[in-house]
Every structure is written in structure tokens, then in C-alpha cells.
């Protein structure tokens, strides 16, 4: 299940930010490593909410800055 989540997150991040999936490593930081600006981040969070059918409140969204932190948050919600 967790691999699945990581894979799905990587795919969404790659699509949303227009970067190759290979660059979307777990430790990759959306802003610093993948070039996301504030608008990208909002859209990315929306896409994750949609894909995993969860709600990510703004306060939580602020702490989601890397691929792994997104995966961890999603896991905590779906556990």
C-alpha cells in the first residue's frame, strides 16, 4: 500500500510540476528541488486531495514540503 501511495504521489507531482518522474525522489523538496512556486503548491495539494479523497487543511498543507512528507500525511489520513 505505501509503495502505491509513493508511486501515485510521484506521478501527480511529475504531472503538476512538469518534471520528470525520475527527479521526484522521496526527499525532493517541492520548492527548492522541483521549482514549485506558491500557486503550484496549492494546485498540487488540490490534486492530492482529489486523488486520495482526503482533505488537507491549509495548516497541514504548509508542512507538506517534500514528496515524503506528502506520503506521510496521506498515510496518516488513510490509516
Amino acid at each position, binding site marked *: 500500500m505505501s509503495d502505491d501511495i509513493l508511486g501515485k504521489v510521484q506521478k501527480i507531482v511529475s504531472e503538476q*510540476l512538469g518534471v520528470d518522474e525520475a527527479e521526484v525522489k522521496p526527499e525532493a523538496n517541492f520548492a527548492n528541488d522541483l521549482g514549485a512556486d506558491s500557486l503550484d503548491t496549492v494546485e498540487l495539494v*488540490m490534486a492530492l486531495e482529489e486523488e486520495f479523497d482526503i482533505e488537507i487543511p491549509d495548516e497541514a498543507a504548509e508542512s507538506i514540503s517534500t514528496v515524503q512528507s506528502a506520503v506521510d500525511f496521506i498515510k496518516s489520513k488513510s490509516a
Partner: protein
Amino acid sequence: MAPSEKQVDEIQRSKKRVVITGMGAITPLGNTLADYWQGLMTSKNGIDRVTAFDASNHGSQVAGQVEGFDPLEYMDRKDVKRAARFAHFAIAGSKQAIADAKLEITDLNAEQVGVMIGTGIGGIQVMEDQQEIYLNKGPSRCSPFMIPMMIANMAAGLTAIQVGAKGPNSCSVTACAAGSNAIGDAFRLVQNGYAQAMICGGTESAVTPLTFAGFSSMRAMSTRNDDPTHASRPFDKDRDGFVLGEGSGILILEELEHAISRGARIYAEMVGYGMSCDAYHMTGIAPGGEGAVRAIRLALKDGGLAPEDVSYVNAHGTSTPVNDPNETAAIKTVLGDHAYKITVSSTKSMTGHLLGGSGGIEGVAAVMAVANDRVPPTINLENPDPACDLDYVAHKSREQTVNVALSNSFGFGGHNVTLAFKKYK
């Protein structure tokens, strides 16, 4: 106190000369300047049934769509995703024009190079898509990119980002006159020393369900759905409305000395810009094209031209019942008997009507006519309307010395714009 004639002369003399050194075009006839011009010269028809969406329940089902355009040839994946199609067209046309002009934009001159790109409608497809999301999923699912993608000025803003042009930047939104207003406003900036070069023109991408619904309800669009290639027929007695087109036309306007100093190729000189308003009706035209008369006169005066100097007019020529005879009347009012000695054509017969983009591609056509001594035709002109009795270059392009070409654009709101281009000597 009004300035004396001597003072006016001094102001005129201090104005800089402005030349066109590069052009780019994304059109229903082809997606480069060369393909566009070749299409115009060979009477190519860019109009067919709408494929961008299912138009089967619409009154009008024909359009001049851009085919085979790949924005990835001009910008990277992420930038493509964050921009609407009208901005893609503007960026692509601008990059073509800059390359054509061999204009290098560096840290040293960036603040002297600006962008002025008009559009009539902006990113309406983005708005339609997001409205659907809003209705189906609620406000929290609307994209944070919706506003920056759809606002009309973003063609100019994103083009500046893409090419690093830090000078004057703005956007005219004067409906179907927007592209020509942008070129005219850019002309003034270069003429008065506010920029060494301006990337300017018009762009539009509005082949969308809502746009069709709105224009159809106005009874403004052709419904010749069973015969799309003959739907746009300016000055013909059987014309029944305009055909919507999409694309962009971009010109590099450059201060003459700057162009000479870097050894740039010069296509033509821009000498005149006239604009006026009908102040008459939202969408109608003042009788006899009274507002158009004033715009044409102002452009001639601005360029120090006499009516007899005009060789060719790229008409607004929308193929609507109301435009074509009024525009014809306006040309005759200004040029008198000379109107019968010149050529007038509507390239919308081939491209459709690009709304705010039309001034861009038609400015390009007028400049190319001056540069090549060849005028594009009006196709589908089988039976001229008796009220349209000028030489509209029916069917086939023609060789002709073109010393001065005018380009007319008129927009809802009563905006009238005429641009004047002259052979560079």
C-alpha cells in the same frame, strides 16, 4: 495655449522613425510567417468545420482553427501548462518575430525592449473549464492558475517573462481592434523614445462553446455550415456573418537608428496611427463608417500622407452584412476617386476573423505587401455587393507596387484603428 505650428513641427522632427524588423505568425493558414504569407499568396482557405468542441447544437459550426501547433516548440512543459492557448500563440509568435529580427535581448538592453500584445477575449476556455469544475465540485476545486491564465494581459506578461523584455508592457482590450491598438501604442512608445524596440501585435483563441453561443445569439456569425470554405466571403452579396478564427500576429517595431546600427533587415517603415470612436452604439457602426473615416484620416495625417499616396488597404472586411459596405463607404469618403485606383482586400476571407488577433496578422500582411510588392486576395468574392464597388483583389493575389499600405481594424464599442506602413527609403 495651443502650440504654434513651428512648435508642432519641432515636436514632429524630434520624433524617431520606426521600422519593422521582424515578424511572426500563428494562423489558420500556417504557423510561421513564411507559411502564412505563402497561404495568403496562394488563396489558401483556413476555414473548416469546428473540431475544437462539439458544435453540433450551435448556429454557427465553422471556424478558422490553428492546426498542428505545438507550444512545446516554444516553451517548456511547465510553462505550457500554466498558460492559456491565446498566450501560447502570443509567446510563439513573439519568439518567431525576435528570431526573424535577430534581436538579442540582454541585460544591457532589456529595459529598452517592451511588449504590447492585445486580445479581445483572453483565456475564455480556461474560464469555461473552471466554471464547470465550480458547478460540479465546488469553489475549493478551482485552479489557483485560473485567474492568471485567463486575464487578457497575460499574453504580454508571459511573453516578457519568456524573452526577458523589461521595458514598457501593456495590453489593449479593444475587441476586434485590440491587435491594431497594440501595434499603434507600441509605435508611439518607440517614436517618442520610451523603448528602442517593441514586440507587438494581437492574439486570440476563442473557438469555445460560450464564445460561439454569444456571437451566434448576436446573429453575427456565418451559418454556412454545409459549405465552410465559402463561409467567409467579405464584400460578396451572399455574405452572412463572420467566421471566427484564432492565432497571433506579432511585429518587432524598432527605432530606425537602432535597427541600422545593428545591421537589421528592414521590411517597412511604420508612419501612421489613427484611432477614433464612433460613440454611437455598442456593436453597430455609425452610418457611412463615420468613425472609420476619422481613423483613416488621422492615420494619413499622422504619417504625413496624402490620400493619393495609398496603394493598398488591408480591410477590416469581416464578411458581416453591416461592416463591408460601411467600410467601403469610409474608404471612398477619405480617398475620393483615388479609392478606385487602389487595391483593398480582406484576408479574413482566408483566415477567418481572429478578433483581437486580427490586427496582428493583418498588420503582418500589410507589411509583407509593402516589402514584397504583392497584395493578398479576397477569396470567395463571387458576386460583389453593389454597395461594395472597389477593387478587392478577388480570388488571386496580385503583383503591385505598394508604397503605402493601410490596415483597418474596428471593434465592438465603436473602436476604429488605422495603421499606415510605408516602403522604407
